[in-house]
Structures are given as structure tokens and as C-alpha cells.
């Protein structure tokens, strides 16, 4: 029995906390092998206690470094240490946080907002076990076997660390909803961990365990080949924790539960009792947060014990264990076709813009002083100053060689040149209602697809909102991935009422959040303008529905969002024209605009906007 599980069953605490403690123990045994933990929890006592526990279990000499969200490459990977360089009068390399965390772990603050670039750098280090630096005139490689603890403070479902990072972390742990009083210090002894660490290299893994874990991964629809590999390492660590040198069925089950179950994209077909279960209605915020990639709230720790001793094949035992740990909402989500979407939602954010004073991409340096927002490029400044040092020194001291200070003059100053690429996003708001759009939905889709191709060429982001029945739905969060845009468009269903106000509200909210991020949104609304569902969901043409729509349209205008309304009705209608007027949008009736012309108009409109923002 594992110490964590033992104590929990004796005292009857929250089993999730006991499991969290087991994760801490397994991670502490092999941080470099298990590669890390994604810890979903808001800052608070529970998370603090978990981190304390981890700190206690890790060897005293193992470094535990914090990585701030917007860390620079120089601090993360290493590069020129400017202070030391100036002092020494010759280039001195500085180590980055990752190299310094060798043998230990790094803590990523606010990992749900981690930029894709940083995630990729971490991923490379996790993959290779070393930091490679080609920066600032230095080329180096230093060993860096480390684990990552990603502190995920996301609340919304799509607020998650980048997929590229999650794919490489063994444990996806969710502490949400664990009460602080349950999070007691568990009697896991750091000496046990130390003994397990020593034992780990000798732990043997029977081939049938390997087969069982691979089979389970496949049955659960876990696609990445990394997950089973991580599960094997976790199983080894589990055996070592128990003081054994052979991985047992129990270890394999634990690994499947911790590593594979949270990544499941399908529920194995054999079990029909789960399929009959009614979709779980998430009623608590913490339940909502535990989406399909989070560990399940109630793992039955006795599950593997039940199967132990029975003569069932190992594959089944391991699969059962994992299946029992599949998050509850998964099935419902899969049935709604949401599982994959939310999985993909965090992706496609690669190369997202850097906010702050340095927005835009670097386009070299120029001579100049750091003022009016221009940032000094220290390296280039030093480079410029470097060749003149002996001469200047001579001029100043008359040949005394003892002073090694670098003399920098005004002429040497170099500032970053930044090419500001005005990022634009096109938000398509598609009326998928039954009314008039029904007949023209296909044409509208065609137009959107053409526009998508344009956006792709311009590297614009696109988002897709559809409204029908009672509500508007964000089908595609802003992305650059053409593949995903195409997919969600082809899946767009039609029929139902026309909640135009809801559609416009959703567009306004998205446009607002985009412009806060420094992206210029353009709203392209495809509708016939005949609203018949008001904001509160009541049906009925005219009256309240129209008023609400007009109201929502005016909000968009007040925001100053650039907009375009494509009238999809068979004949140009007044209602659509009126909405366009309220939105301050360009009005284009579709009968006169074939898909090609439409795309030309949008291109012209967005191009105008782009030049304006420069």
C-alpha cells in the first residue's frame, strides 16, 4: 500500500487530496522522468499545501525555481550576462532558469496564460533533457533534467496551459473543490522518497504491463505516444515508492488512472452502463472547471483492489482502473461533440501577440537614443561600442591597461526597431436560423469559406459565432488555423428562431475582448435581419426582439467596431438595412454579391482598417 493511500483510508479524508499527495510523491521521485504536473487550482491554501508537500518531498538540494509568466529568453534559457560582462570587460555567459533547475523542477506561474513560444521552449528542454542556447554570441548546451509544475489558474474551460506542454506532463491534477480542512499534511516521509529515488533505476517493468498500458491508452482514445511512455515512468515510480523492483498490476492501474484517464477522448465501448447514465449537469463552478482533461473529482481508490487477485487479463484490469477515473462529464461532452472542440480550443494560439511596450516584431536595430518608447538594445549597443574600447581607453588613460570598464558613448546607442503588425481578427456572425437563412445558409457558408482563404493569406485570425434557436454560440474562438475554421464551419447546423440580439451581443463581447488584447476586430454579420427572439428568449417577430437587436447593434457601433452586414434574404430587406445602420456597418445584399465579390468587399473594408491602425 502506498503511504498516501494508506493514510487516507485510515482517516477518511477527501480521497482526492490523498491522490494529490500520491502525485506529489511520484513526481518527487522522478521529476525529470515524469516531466511534471499541471496543477489546476486557484491560488489558495490547498495549492500552497500541495506545493509545501512537494517541497518537503523533493531532496533538499534539488532546485525549485519559479518562472514568471513573461520571462525573457535570456532569463529562461540563458545568454549574455550584461552586468558581469561589463564588469569583466569580456563576454560572460549567464545561465537561464531552466539550466539552474537541473535535477529539480520549475514552477510556472499562471500557466494557463503561458505564451505558445515559451511552452515550446519548455517542451524542447523536457524532450532533450538539456538546454541548448544559441544566443547573444554564445553557443552552449547544459544538462537540464527537470520537471515542470504548471500552476494553472484557469477558470473557463478553454483557459488551459498550451497543449504542447500538457502533452509532456504526466499528471493533470485538479485541486479545485478540495476543502482546505481536508488538505492536511500527510505522513509521507521524505526518506521514503529518497529510498524510492535510489531504487528507481533498478525497477523492472514486465512486458505485459507495457502491453496493458498501451492497450488502455488506445481504448481510451489517447492519441499521443507520449502518454503511455509517461505512464510507464509513473508505474516505475509507483513500484519504487512501494519498495519493489518489479512493476505490479497495481502500479499499472495507478499510472493508467493518473496519466491516461484524464486524457481520454473516448469511452471504451464495452461498458454500457455509463452510456445510459444521464449527462451530468454541471451545477457547481468547480464541477464546470473539471472538464475532460482534468482528473476526475472522485477517484475510487479501492477500485484496483477489487480487481486484484482476480484472474482477469491485465489489460482489462488496467483499463477498468482508468475507466473508473474518467471525468464524469466526458461522455456527455463527447456525445454533444464538444469534447474535441474544447480540447482544441487552447491550441492555435501559437505566436500570440506580446503585449506591452514591445508589441510588434523586431525588425533589426537602428542607431538612436532610447526615448519616446524606443527600447535600448543593450547587446547591440555593446557590440557597437566594443571595437573602439582600446582606442577610447587609451585616449582616456593614456595607455593604462588596468581599467577594464567599457566606455559607451552616445553614438553607440542602438534601439530596437519594431515593425508593428496590426493584428486583425475577423469575427463571422452567422445567422443559422430557420427563417430566411435556411435557404441561403449554403451560400453564406461559401462566402465565409472564401473569406477564410483570404484571412489565411493575410494571417488574420478568424472566429465564428452562430446564432439560432434561443442563443448565440461561439463555435470557433479566434484562431489562425484554417483546418479548424473549416471543420467548425462544415459542422454548422441550421434551423430554429432568430435571436439576432444574442448574436450581436456575443459579437460585441468577443470584439471587446479582442481589442483589449490589441487585436483589431472586424465583425461580418450574415443575416436577413428578421429578429424573432428577444434577449430574454421570448419568441415573437417585431416588438421586443427588434428593439433588443437594435440595442445590441448600437452597442457594437458605440464600441467602434468595424462591421459589415451581408443581407442573406432573397430580396434586400429594410430590417437588415436598419440593423446595418444601427451597427454603423457596411450593408451588402447577397443577391447582388456572389461569393467572390463579397470577399472583395470584405478585403477592401479590412484593408482600409488596417492602414488606419498603423
Amino acid at each position, binding site marked *: 500500500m502506498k503511504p498516501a493511500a494508506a493514510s487516507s483510508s485510515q482517516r477518511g479524508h477527501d480521497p482526492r487530496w490523498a491522490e494529490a499527495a500520491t502525485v506529489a510523491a511520484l513526481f518527487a521521485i522522478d521529476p*525529470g522522468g515524469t516531466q511534471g504536473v499541471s496543477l489546476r487550482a486557484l491560488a489558495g491554501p490547498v495549492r500552497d499545501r500541495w506545493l509545501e508537500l512537494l517541497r518537503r518531498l523533493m531532496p533538499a538540494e534539488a532546485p525549485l525555481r519559479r518562472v514568471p509568466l513573461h520571462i525573457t529568453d535570456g532569463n529562461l534559457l540563458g545568454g549574455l550576462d550584461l552586468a558581469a560582462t561589463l564588469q569583466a570587460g*569580456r563576454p560572460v555567459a549567464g545561465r537561464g532558469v531552466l539550466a539552474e533547475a537541473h535535477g529539480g523542477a520549475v514552477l510556472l506561474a499562471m500557466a494557463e496564460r503561458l505564451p505558445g513560444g515559451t511552452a515550446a521552449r519548455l517542451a524542447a528542454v523536457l524532450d532533450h533533457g538539456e538546454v541548448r542556447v544559441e544566443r547573444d554570441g554564445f*553557443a552552449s548546451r547544459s544538462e537540464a533534467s527537470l520537471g515542470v509544475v504548471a500552476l494553472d489558474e484557469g477558470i473557463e474551460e478553454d483557459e488551459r496551459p498550451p497543449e504542447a506542454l500538457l502533452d509532456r506532463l504526466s499528471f493533470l491534477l485538479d485541486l479545485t473543490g478540495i476543502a482546505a480542512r481536508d488538505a492536511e499534511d500527510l505522513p509521507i516521509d521524505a526518506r521514503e522518497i529518497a529510498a524510492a529515488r535510489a531504487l528507481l533505476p533498478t525497477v523492472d517493468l514486465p512486458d505485459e504491463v507495457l502491453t496493458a498500458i498501451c492497450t488502455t491508452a488506445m481504448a481510451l482514445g489517447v492519441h499521443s505516444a507520449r502518454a503511455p511512455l509517461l505512464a510507464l515512468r509513473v508505474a516505475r515510480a509507483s513500484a519504487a515508492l512501494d519498495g519493489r523492483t518489479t512493476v505490479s498490476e497495481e502500479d499499472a492501474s495507478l499510472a493508467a488512472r493518473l496519466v491516461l484517464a484524464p486524457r481520454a477522448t473516448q469511452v471504451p465501448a464495452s461498458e454500457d452502463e455509463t452510456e445510459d447514465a444521464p449527462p451530468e449537469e454541471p451545477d457547481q463552478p468547480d464541477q464546470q472547471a473539471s472538464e475532460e482533461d482534468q482528473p476526475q473529482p472522485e477517484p475510487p481508490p479501492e477500485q484496483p483492489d477489487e480487481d486484484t487477485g482476480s484472474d482477469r487479463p491485465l489489460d482489462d484490469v488496467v483499463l477498468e482502473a482508468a475507466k473508473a477515473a474518467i471525468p464524469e462529464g466526458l461522455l456527455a461532452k463527447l456525445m454533444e461533440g464538444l469534447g474535441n472542440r474544447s480540447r482544441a480550443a487552447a491550441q492555435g494560439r501559437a505566436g500570440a501577440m506580446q503585449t506591452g511596450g514591445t508589441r510588434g516584431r523586431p525588425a533589426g536595430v537602428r542607431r538612436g537614443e532610447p526615448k519616446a518608447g524606443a527600447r535600448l538594445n543593450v547587446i547591440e549597443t555593446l557590440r557597437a561600442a566594443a571595437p573602439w574600447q582600446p582606442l577610447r581607453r587609451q585616449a582616456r588613460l593614456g595607455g593604462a591597461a588596468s581599467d577594464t570598464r567599457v566606455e559607451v558613448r552616445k553614438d553607440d546607442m542602438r534601439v530596437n526597431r519594431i515593425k508593428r503588425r496590426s493584428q486583425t481578427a475577423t469575427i463571422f456572425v452567422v445567422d443559422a436560423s430557420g427563417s430566411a437563412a435556411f435557404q441561403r445558409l449554403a451560400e453564406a457558408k461559401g462566402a465565409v469559406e472564401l473569406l477564410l482563404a483570404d484571412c489565411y493569406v493575410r494571417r488574420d485570425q478568424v472566429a465564428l459565432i452562430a446564432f439560432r434557436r434561443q442563443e448565440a454560440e461561439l463555435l470557433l474562438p479566434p484562431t489562425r488555423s484554417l483546418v479548424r475554421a473549416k471543420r467548425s464551419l462544415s459542422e454548422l447546423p441550421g434551423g430554429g428562431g432568430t435571436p439576432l440580439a444574442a448574436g450581436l451581443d456575443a459579437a460585441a463581447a468577443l470584439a471587446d475582448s479582442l481589442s483589449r488584447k490589441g487585436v483589431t476586430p472586424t465583425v461580418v454579420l450574415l443575416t436577413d435581419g428578421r429578429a424573432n427572439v428577444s434577449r430574454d428568449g421570448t419568441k415573437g417577430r417585431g416588438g421586443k426582439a427588434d428593439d433588443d437587436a437594435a440595442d445590441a447593434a448600437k452597442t457594437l457601433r458605440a464600441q467602434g467596431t468595424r462591421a459589415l452586414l451581408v443581407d442573406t434574404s432573397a430580396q434586400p430587406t429594410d430590417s437588415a438595412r436598419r440593423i446595418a445602420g444601427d451597427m454603423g456597418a457596411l450593408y451588402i445584399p447577397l443577391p447582388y454579391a456572389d461569393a467572390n465579390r463579397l470577399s472583395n468587399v470584405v478585403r477592401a473594408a479590412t484593408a482600409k482598417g488596417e492602414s488606419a491602425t498603423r
Partner: protein
Amino acid sequence: MPDTNLDAGAGLPLDATSPGTSMELAPAFPSSAPGTVVPLPVRHAAKPDGGKKRKPDKAAKAASPPVPSPAPASGAAKRIPFPFTAIVGQEEMKLALLIAAVDQSVGGVMVFGDRGTGKSTAVRALAALLPPMKAVEGCRYGCDPAQADRLCAECRARQGHEALRAVKVPVPVVDLPLGATEDRVVGALDLERALTKGEKGFEPGLLARAHRGFLYIDEVNLLEDHLVDLLLDVAASGENVVEREGLSIRHPAKFVLIGSGNPEEGELRPQLLDRFGLSVEVKTPTVLHDRIEVIRRRDSFERDPAAFAAHWEKEEAKIRRKIEKAKARLPDIVVPDTVLESAARLCMTLGADGLRGELTLMRAARALAGLEGDKVVTDAHLRAVAPPSLRHRLRRNVLDEAGSTVRIERALAEQFGP
């Protein structure tokens, strides 16, 4: 931070210029020795005197070991790469890499694929398969002694005083790490010399190191735009022109660009895609047996890399010989007119833009014939290399749900029969 710094003088001389070092792939080992402090190796530049042309000094010699080492020697700094031949499945990717190894003029290889499909593993494993090449001894750019007209300025200058000696060196496979700065990519003023001696000297970058070899960029879509532009420019011209800090240097930089990326992370610019000769797609194996084998090999490699590599060494040697023979055979392989016609017809049917498609198709088919030991290129060769050669050159049709691969298969079936 300052207390952990090692200054450049005290650092270990890093064999950064040795191409052998760029080919390792290291799985994360269970950390057996936590907390050991590894001194940061600092690049101690090899300095053949830029200004005065003299014999190469010791550092330069050390930088290009005369003995090729296909299997890297064991040691703390060297990591054993996962053997190429031990990769399960992914035949198209392996074939494309082998073709690029046989005939570099095929152009680069772009590998698209899902996470965890072993894209990087394959590319890094390639280095161990490449037969060594001849290079001018002591040349910082690895000039080819056989091509007197393509020598770098330093070699040309040396030619006046002495006969250039040729040594065998491993073909470089240079890995461009994320976060690399422009100065390290193109090369820049040697900061150390500038700071300590006040001299201007050129410190070659990764492009110089990749000359005559391969430049690998993992996650191409995450590379900064200005670096991408720069790489494309150099890859197209085969020459790196550096104009910075009053330096004006040009040196040959012909390399095969190998990129990998995940289409879900964002698409590649068409201009960039077009520069790759071959484009392959890798998928997670869907057969359980294959997946188990993938994990089994990976696991036993992680447990004991040396033993695993030794186990596969025979296979590796076989492929190495195959590449060597194909390279030697290449000039004599005949491409009949009928095959050229077939290639042209195929490109026309598919509406593949430009002549580049046809040229790649022909070269790739020839390299494949070489690998298979054939003297004449046939339609069968053409057919095998058509998908990777043309996939990325088809005009995008947003409305066509069928991917490029399906369209090519269709055209192939039409032209050559099922």
C-alpha cells in the same frame, strides 16, 4: 545569477562547431544524480586569424575532427540518438529523409504531424546515417575541396600560399533551437575578441555550420518571422551575406532545410512551404501492435541507450551503406523520356504550380531508384515519391474537403491505373 557564471575564459571549450554534437536526442532519464551542477560550457570560438591568413590553429583543428564518428563516442557531453532504423512505421517520412540524404538537391523536407509521433526523433537520427564528406582542413565553413570555384574567401586566400588539405568530416545536421538570436544564426562580430582585444572578427553562426549539411527547425511555425525570412533567403541563394557592425562577410551556406510542425498550431506561409522539396505527414500509428512496439523500443532505449544503439547498429550500418551506394550510383541513373513525360502529365493534371514540382519529382524518383539499386527510373519510382513531392504544391482549395494527398492518389490512379 552572477555567482553561477563562468566567464568565457574558464569555460570548457565547446565543440559547438563539430557537427557531431548536433545530432543527439536525449530522452528524459530518471534523474539519477539530482542537484549535480554542470558547468556551463561556453563557446570558446575557434579562431583562425581572420585578418592575417595563416595556417589554422589548434582550436580550428579540434573543431573539425578528422575522423568521422557516425556513432558518437560515449561521454558526458555526447548523447546517443535513437536509431533511425528502430523507428516503427512512418515509412513516408523515413523515405523522404533518405532521399534528401542521397540527393541534397531535392530540397528540404517538411514534416507535418501530430504530437508525439517522433518527428524530431527521426530527423535527429538521420545524422548517424550520413556518410562522411570531404572538407578543407581547418575551414570554418566546411568548404568542399572538390569544388574549387565554390570556396569561401578564407580558403581562396589560403590557396595562394599552400595546398589545401582535405579531411573527412561528418555531414553536419544542425539543430536550430528555439529562442536562437539572429546573431547566432547568421554570425556576427566576435564579441569576446572585440571586448578583450578591440579587434573586429567574424564569428560564424549556425548557417555556416550547416553548410553542405542539414539545418533542422523544430516547430517551424513558432519561429519568428524575421528569422524565417532570413533563412529562406539564404536557403534560396546558397550564400550568407552578413552586413553588420561594419563587417562585410559573405560565405557559402548551402544546406537542406528540414522543418517539422503541427498544423494545429497554425499554418505555414505558402512561400515557406514552397521552399521544401518534400512534404510528409506523420500520424500516430493506429494499429495496437505498432503502438506497443513504439513504446517498447522507446522504453528499452531509455533504460539503456548504449545497449539499444548497439543492438540496432547492424541495421544502421546497412542503411548507411545503402545511402553511400545510392550516392555513388546517382550520376549514372537514367531518367527515360517516358518517365519525364509522366511527371509532366501528373503535374498538369494536378495543377501543381511551377516547374519546381516536376524537378523535385524527377530528382526524388532518381534518388529512390538509387536507394533501391535500380539503374533506370520507372513509373513505379515516380508513383512512390509523388505524394511527398507534390502534396504541398497543389493550389489550395478551401471548398475541397479532400486533402491534397487524396487528390494526388486519385490522379495517380487515373494515370497509372489502380
